């Protein structure tokens, strides 16, 4: 409270109006595409047209949502995405919690170099591994299967999850670990009894991050699982929007349904999301 009161802004009070005007215009800019999605998706077939795209619907209807869900493939995509995202986020977060623990508290010769190689891999574009990935998945019978997609998400989640957990464990003093070692605690005991119980906040952040990025993924989904019956919801949205015969209200409704889970999670757990944002960049 006192900090807020004494903080000098450095700007004369007149410019406060300009500042608020800037903030409001920026907010309108960010909300504009969502306004278009919502308004268009609530219109009926007859009302959707190019000249009145900014107008509010004359008659509210959910027929766009119903068609998108039932006939547009969004319903099955949504369910598929759920079965892809939940296991993949859980497995990759759990792996990250152990890997991060080792990178933070069991440093061995070369562990930092290995960690750097992990990070480097995290940044690389998927196109650099796409063809061998498809060949390998085909060879093991995982291509075009949900489990194959979960597997690929887990592999590509290793670096980021290890990074996030490593930063979290690094904030826990080494003395605590050393004391546990002297008390006879081993590798697994320290993990189960000391770190895991206090790692809940880190788990929440990593799970949220993985959930959002796997739910929103398109490229891995379209490569590994392009079969419309099994594909994740982002692929369904793209198929729906790419079809020339689909009315815009259905396309927009489909896009909104696909975006809903991550938006809801963001609004409900904004603070954790912010922490994930900051931990997701290497230096954060």
């Amino acid at each position, binding site marked *: 409270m006192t900090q807020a009161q004494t903080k000098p802004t450095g700007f004369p009070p007149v410019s406060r109006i300009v500042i608020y005007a800037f903030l409001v215009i920026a907010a309108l800019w960010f909300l504009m595409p969502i306004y278009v999605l919502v308004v268009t998706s609530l219109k009926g077939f007859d009302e959707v047209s190019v000249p009145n795209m900014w107008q509010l619907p004359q008659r509210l209807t959910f027929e766009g949502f119903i068609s998108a869900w039932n006939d547009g493939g969004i319903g099955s995509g949504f369910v598929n995405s759920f079965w892809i995202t939940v296991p993949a986020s859980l497995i990759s977060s759990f792996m990250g919690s152990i890997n991060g623990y080792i990178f933070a508290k069991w440093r061995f010769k070369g562990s930092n170099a290995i960690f750097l*190689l992990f*990070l480097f891999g995290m940044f690389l574009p998927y196109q650099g591994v796409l063809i061998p990935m498809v060949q390998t998945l085909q060879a093991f019978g995982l291509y075009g299967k949900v489990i194959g997609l979960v597997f690929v998400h887990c592999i590509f989640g290793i670096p980021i999850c290890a990074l996030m957990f490593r930063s979290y464990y690094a904030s826990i003093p080494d003395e605590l670990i050393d004391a546990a070692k002297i008390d*006879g605690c081993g*590798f697994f005991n320290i993990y189960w009894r000391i770190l895991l119980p206090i790692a809940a906040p880190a788990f929440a952040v990593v799970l949220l991050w993985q959930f959002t990025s796997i739910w929103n993924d398109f*490229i891995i989904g379209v490569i590994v699982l392009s079969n419309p019956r099994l594909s994740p919801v982002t692929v369904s949205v793209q198929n729906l929007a790419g079809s020339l015969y689909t009315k815009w209200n259905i396309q927009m409704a489909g896009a909104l349904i696909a975006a809903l889970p*991550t938006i809801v999670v963001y609004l409900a757990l904004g603070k954790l999301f912010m922490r994930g944002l900051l931990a997701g960049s290497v230096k954060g």
Partner: protein
Amino acid sequence: MDLAVKTASVQRPHKRRINRDMLLAILVLTPSILAVAIFIYSFIAWTFWISAVNWNDVVPDFTFVGLKNWVSVLSNSRFQIDIRNLVLYAIGFMAQCVVFGFLLAAVLDQRIKGEGIFRTIYIFPFAVSAIVTGVAWRWVMRPDSGINLLLDGVGLGAFKSLWYSHPTLGILFVTIAASWQFVGYIMALYLAGLRGISQEVREAAMIDGCSAVSMYRHIIIPMLSGITFTAIVLTGMGAIRAFDIIAAIGGSGQAFSTDTLAYNMFEQTFLANRYSLSAVIGAVMIIISSLLVVPYLISAQKETER
């Protein structure tokens, strides 16, 4: 003396225990190391190898042809347009994200009423997928509707644009949609950085008679240079990877005006089955990304060591 003997005898089994645990730690980490080694590094090597063989059909053909594919891709006009588009995309995306990300953060840092609401609105597009972003913006930037309609409505019809349908600069307009999604992230990074600058620094600057503008120019912006570097690397990587948003906004466009390396590579692989040629594009993407990521990781490493 007695004490020394005692601690030594206590410590020996303890030490042995730690060595055993260290081995266990390495053992537990091994599957992940193998996964990264195989699925990232050996696959990259394999991509480079495919780029040097003659596999440009459905049937694999591993006859070594040296740089033949590289020569044919590098002299291909679509590839050259992609490189030009990468430069345009990177410049447009970086500039918008860094400038607006910083501006929004600096303004939000001014004791704003309702800061939380503004922040929530600015960051939420980051929770939205690039596919949904593209679908929404394709509609908003339609030449016959959307923003053009609004411009007409307020008498600014002169500023109407073809947007992403522009025959040469379409890719720049795609970065508007991409920035809409990503700028909140960069803002969050800057905001955290600004909050980390101590009050004393600002106060000292004010006492020394620094104006607000020169305080930002000479003190705050240089102090945030690390974040700017991060922002440049992240947006640069976004430019190299650009795929989802291209697919959603309408593909490679007229005369490839909105094509990217990533999109081209995908089409060469899955539509044309020209595996060796597309491996060249993948390899080029790896090389360009390394130029960005290696310096970044080296500097991050130095920072943690300090």
